[in-house]
């Protein structure tokens, strides 16, 4: 067996994906600026009423990276599958994990930039306040981005065209957004809805952020939630790896 990850190839793959992103300024602008624009809308929708706005924006800080990374990754990976580059890579020394972790690291970096900018806006411009540390908020936002990225990698396997890839959005992202606690607190949901929301990973991103909002010290639930999300990311990467057979029909 060749090594599962070759540092040289992983580094080259990460650099290649970041370079592709760098050639696409519009996507970068969307990633970085869109959260701020949407938070501005939300802020004025509720006339800046606290603590309502603060609570809502805190949740949004986890949702933005999740949604944006899901979209970007599912389309990028679909292109990899349909353009023939994936097939070509399968004939090279590149391992599947070199490719998947390449996406993980490069888009994770993008998620970090987005998380920093969005959290910066939230704290400085929109008076979001959390009892816990701001760096924890950024950390969970990055986890949300990684979650969206890993689920995007998986969902690209179920699409043949970019049109179909975008159709995965309402299937994967919208139910999670509805039930994650943004619209209705999870405690107020009917039991069956609560159960569904329990098995949706975005729920734990949101709960982790709410824990940071409520507790000065990192709570046990925060760490548990972060662990659940990280586990989901690894699980999704494993599933994504299984959707990349070297031999195809």
């Amino acid at each position, binding site marked *: 067996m060749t090594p599962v990850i070759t540092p040289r190839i992983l580094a080259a793959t990460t650099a*290649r994906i970041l370079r592709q992103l760098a050639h*696409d300024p519009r996507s970068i602008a969307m990633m970085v600026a869109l959260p701020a624009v949407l938070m501005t809308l939300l802020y004025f929708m509720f006339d800046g009423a606290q603590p309502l706005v603060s609570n809502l924006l805190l949740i949004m800080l986890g949702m933005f990276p999740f949604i944006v990374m899901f979209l970007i990754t599912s389309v990028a990976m679909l292109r990899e599958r349909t353009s*023939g580059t994936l*097939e*070509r890579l399968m*004939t*090279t*020394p590149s391992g599947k994990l070199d490719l998947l972790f390449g996406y993980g690291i490069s888009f994770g970096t993008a998620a970090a930039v987005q998380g920093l900018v969005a959290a910066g806006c939230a704290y400085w411009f929109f008076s979001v306040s959390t009892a816990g540390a701001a760096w924890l908020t950024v950390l969970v936002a990055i986890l949300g981005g990684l979650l969206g990225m890993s689920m995007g990698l998986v969902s690209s396997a179920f699409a043949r065209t970019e049109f179909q890839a975008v159709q995965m959005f309402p299937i994967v992202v919208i139910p999670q957004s509805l039930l994650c606690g943004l619209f209705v607190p999870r405690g107020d949901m009917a039991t069956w809805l609560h159960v569904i929301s329990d098995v949706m990973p975005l729920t734990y991103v949101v709960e982790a952020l709410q824990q940071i909002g409520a507790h000065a010290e990192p709570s046990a639930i925060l760490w548990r939630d972060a662990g659940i999300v990280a586990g989901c990311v690894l699980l999704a990467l494993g599933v994504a790896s299984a959707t990349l057979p*070297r031999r195809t029909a």
Partner: protein
Amino acid sequence: MRVTVDVGSAIDVEALTVRRGGRVVLDALSCRIAPGSVTGLLGPSGSGKTTLMRSIVGVQRIAAGTVRVFGLPAGSPELRARTGYMTQSVSIYEDLTVTENVRYFAAVAGAGRAAVARTIGEVGLADAARQLVHTLSGGQRSRASLACALVGDPELLVLDEPTVGQDPLLREELWDMFHSRARAGATVVVSSHVMDEAVRCDRLLLIRDGALLADDTPAGVQAAAGTDDMDAAFLTLIRQAGQEPPGGPERGAGGGADSHKDAVTALAATAAEQRHTRSDTNDTGGRHARREPR
């Protein structure tokens, strides 16, 4: 149709059967490809050229048979560092420049940085090296894709229609380059559906309907068909294959690979019989791969 090249064949395909979407694409195909040579894979589109190439580089799911490259099962991890594969579609990143693409595949293959500019020059893209791929012409894109297959100086080059869309001068240069790579020891497999490129190969595999029509030198194919014109030769071989009664010349009796006429006739008969068998059983959908008699 045993071709008796026992000493050091680079590629050894045994009774390879591939089905795609319920259709038999390759039908118990066997062939050997010698190292350090340029082998042309010719045949009409849909004949199975790409499927054979995908099998050789190890990305094709196969129903039966074996494919060995340099003595190892096709697609082995050890082989991947030694293989350069250019797919028929332009399989590079359109949102990167030519240099960025070649640099990436060089890094994956473990090739040094010096190889990047040299290879881009070899395919005649030095002037377009800093251009984004999606701004290139079709022929340029194809050459950029070719450069990504060449850059690691692989021992096995599998190139699916690398000369499509190139002007005559460039085609000439590309064929010269394939031969210089072969002289340096590489095994080069090139597919084309343009018959006039056949004469540029050291050896030809003519494929039709997933079966080998001929495995010979260009001169041998011409001699067997009694014409210098490759298009006409191919048609003649197809007709011969169609006329030969199934089971005529004994299969497996192919002696030396150099007895061109006999070998080609036998191959043609084999092809006819294979097609015959296939049309008999195709609709049952559950046929088993037939093995070549030893």
